[in-house]
């Protein structure tokens, strides 16, 4: 770790430095998944790839949506659309904590001035049928990352175990840049000819989506889409594994999982519209979990999930 800390000047510089840092550590830098998800964990590069025996190392930014967290852009740090930075390495390397701390140094956190703590936080995702043990990482009392060793995903034991790091980018960047309101945060270089703040880019969309999420989204349509996604997911998975055209086994784990993601996001929207009662909630979560488990089962039947034609013979 070099001693000099160079302060970043913008949100995007922090992202770029993370990309560069994890690239140097040997991670494949993926692009965001092209669907609406609630967190970086939902990206198939994490959910599905944490299963099976094959080694894996990726890092990516994932735009994430949590409709209930919308505050019309007025709350200093609550957004319905925000960015997570996600790292997943399988098997988890023995020095993952050190790698993580160096990444903080890389984005401008002076480790000699701040108080970094690993505070117990067991992670569980009822919708993914997944759990792991780890910590939330505190910097001067503020949670800046989640650090998890995956134990189970989609109801399957993870072996080897993946180490997952999730950085809440806006909150972390606001702290490093010394900004009190997310909308005031410089997105690009403040000295650029056309400097843009986070608010220039997202204030209006936060307002639009908050209004739509809370008051306008057509719940009948959403309820129908939920049922359709669920049915499509099940339909995809019930198709004969061998493709008659290619004459080989093609289990469609990823297309099925897309439908699972879709159902999960629609559930979040319905939740924000306040049309799901407490008792129904559990039932919806269970339905999404059933899909996630079925997708996990299917993934383990694919080459990426460790299936091999030779094993069968």
């Amino acid at each position: 770790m070099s001693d000099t800390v160079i302060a970043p000047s913008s949100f995007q510089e922090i992202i770029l430095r993370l990309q560069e840092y994890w690239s140097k550590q040997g991670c494949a830098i993926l692009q965001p998944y092209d669907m609406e998800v609630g967190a970086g964990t939902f990206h198939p590069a994490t959910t599905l790839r944490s299963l099976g025996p094959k080694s894996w190392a990726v890092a990516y930014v994932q735009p994430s949506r949590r409709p209930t967290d919308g505050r019309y852009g007025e709350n200093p740090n609550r957004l319905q659309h925000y960015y997570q930075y996600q790292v997943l390495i399988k098997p988890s390397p023995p020095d993952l904590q050190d790698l993580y701390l160096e990444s903080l140094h890389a984005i401008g956190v002076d480790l000699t001035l701040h108080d970094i703590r690993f505070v117990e936080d067991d992670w569980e995702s009822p919708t993914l049928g997944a759990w792991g043990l780890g910590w939330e990482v505190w910097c001067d009392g503020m949670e800046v990352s989640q650090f998890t060793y995956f134990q189970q995903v989609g109801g399957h034991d993870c072996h080897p175990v993946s180490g997952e790091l999730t950085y809440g980018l806006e909150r972390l960047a606001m702290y490093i840049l010394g900004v009190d309101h997310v909308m005031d945060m410089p997105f690009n270089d403040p000295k650029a000819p056309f400097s843009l703040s986070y608010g220039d880019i997202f204030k209006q969309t936060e307002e639009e989506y908050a209004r739509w999420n809370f008051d306008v989204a057509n719940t009948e349509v959403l309820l129908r889409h939920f049922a359709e996604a669920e049915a499509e997911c099940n339909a995809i998975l019930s198709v004969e594994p061998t493709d008659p055209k290619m004459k080989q086994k093609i289990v469609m784990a990823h297309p099925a999982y897309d439908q699972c993601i879709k159902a999960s996001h629609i559930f979040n929207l319905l939740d924000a519209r306040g049309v799901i009662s407490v008792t129904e909630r559990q039932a919806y979560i269970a339905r999404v979990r059933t899909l996630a488990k079925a997708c996990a089962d299917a993934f383990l039947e694919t080459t990426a999930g460790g299936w091999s034609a030779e094993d069968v013979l």
Partner: protein
Amino acid sequence: MPDLLIELFSEEIPARMQRRAGEDLKKIITNGLVEAGLTYVAAAAFTTSRRLTLTVEGLLANSPTVREERKGPRADASEKAVGGFLRGVGLTRDEVEVRGSPKGDILFAVIEKPGRPAVDIISQVLEHAIRNFPWQKSMRWGTGTLKWVRPLQSILCILSDDSGATVVPITAQGIAADNKTQGHRFMAPKMITVTGFDDYRVKLKRAYVILDPDERAQVICHDATNVAFASGLELIEDKNLLAEVSGLVEWPVVLMGRINSAFLELPAEVLQTSMREHQKFFSVRNPKTDKIENFITVANREAKDSGATILAGNEKVLSARLADAKFFWENDLIVAKSDLSIWTKALKNVTFHNKLGTQFDRVKRIEALASNLALAVGADIKEAEEGARWAKVDLNSEMVYEFPELQGTMGSYYIKASGRSLAVAVASKEHYSPLGPSDSVPTAPVSVVVALADKLDTLTGFWAIDEKPTGSKDPFALRRGALGVIRLVIENNLTLKLTRFVELQLLRHEIEINREQASKDDLVVIEGVAADAATDGVLPATISTILDGADTQIGGLIPSIQKSIEQVSIDLLNFVYDRLKVYLRDQGFSHDVIDACIAMDQDVDLTSVVKRIKALSEALKTDDGENLIQGYKRANNILSQAEHSSGVEYSYGADLKFMENDEERALFAALDKVGADIAAAMKDQDFTTAMTAMASLRMPIDAFFETTLINADNEIVRRNRLNMLSRIRTLCLSVADLNKLDG
């Protein structure tokens, strides 16, 4: 004699698991060593967020040699028998001894197990401990199969004596033990080589690690108190938080910061809860304003700017947290000041239990029972009803959604803000109490009524749907609820016939449970009974008696409800009695005295039972009292025998004219006088006076038995004397069933 030092170094161990893990490590290792024959002088365990450490002093260098003899068959036994013996002991025929005995020559095997060096034993015991450690929750990492609380990074295990330290060879999932550890993660991360426990402890301290959690707690407590005092402020002690925080840091550094003045108007409980739960901050009070104005955070390091950056960061995070809390508080106040019933109506959407309806249904039932209980407790009926109606109003507030532990506390603030009386407001906070044997019991009448109604509703509800506690399982804390009822009644000296209220509330549950299937006529009847009870305020009789008089169809709903209420009520009240027995035994009353008094209790009037128990216990401490019991038992035995053999009751009362001696006449006079005294005392439930009066019978009874033969030849005289014994029995059974007393 060598000393052993073990350190299991890992990624951060959750604070709440550390102390227990230290104790487990000590127990498992020392037990394992002793079982293998390695005794020791002393052992101690220490924990930090990254290490479990055990030091064992004065170990044996080797386990002692053990000689064992086993007797076999006769030397001339069958080949099969001899062969079996030899295989069993693992020796050849030449290696066993032959010893003569009166029964002939017998084979003996002498097996000598040589002692093993400590290193071998330790290595085996520690490896087993690592593989089987009883973590509450553990995990795998990387490609391995070993489970530990978080990834295990290194093992230090050395055995040291005057000649130096030896590493005990152990490997767990590729980690080989050595004599090295690391200092503080940030302040001194370099490797440290150690030669023994003292060296280890000293070097760690130099590397910014305080090994002993108690020492860390002391440092925090001491420094926090001082830093607050230096500014004229007071630290608010919080033992649980202190224990947690000392498990989060290896090198505690106390920093005091200010709460932004925008948040000082928040209720103290909100500030304290938010700071403790979210930030692990201690609260600091300004004695001049009596407000919490500052906080103390404990960092895990020293910093070159003396912690200025750390403190600024923490203050900022706290402000964001409190901004949320303030947002909730202000929103809640708007609702509270406009219409509290917005919240209670929303309780319709919250399920309490799928068989017992919503929280809204529950509150309605509690309100009805509170109204019935008010008179007995001495509370204003309208206030009791209101107290119950709003007691759980905060369950739908934003603040309680965020901080469930503030339920009741927030209710009191919001009810007060709505302009209702203080008694009604306070009931929200107090009605959850007592939460355990050491929690205080409310005394304000409205709080007492609501607390009782709440607990009785829960108990009767779960009894009605047959979800009673079993063994160690008590998910709805019903034992605690029953103890709560007992303490509320006894400690407030309430005269309350519990049976009646229990049956009434069971009826309310039955109405809800059967509402769907019941016929309209039946519903009208049972709802009528419940409503009458409510308007009367005082219950004239038990529900089963009232239902007896109702116009019902045989085989219909009402007889079945009646029967089930009666049975369930008896079962529930027996459960309450069982908790009462535990409670009273804890206070030092003996079980037979408790049983003797409970036997006399028909309406489950707990205060009266306790008064009886106290009176009887006191009486038994006196000479007269103790002897009276013997006299009573003698009288009762003779009388029971006579009743049994002749089938006659001797309850006519004795007649003075058939008396033959002075002792007989003296007892007769005493019984008359004492009888009158007891009757007067019992009217006021003055059991102490009744017992004292009873005890005064001891002398005349003893004298009577000494001089008088009961079974006289003259049948009239005999019957007269038996009638007198009958009088003794009746009087002596006024307070307690003395037959239940031991000895």
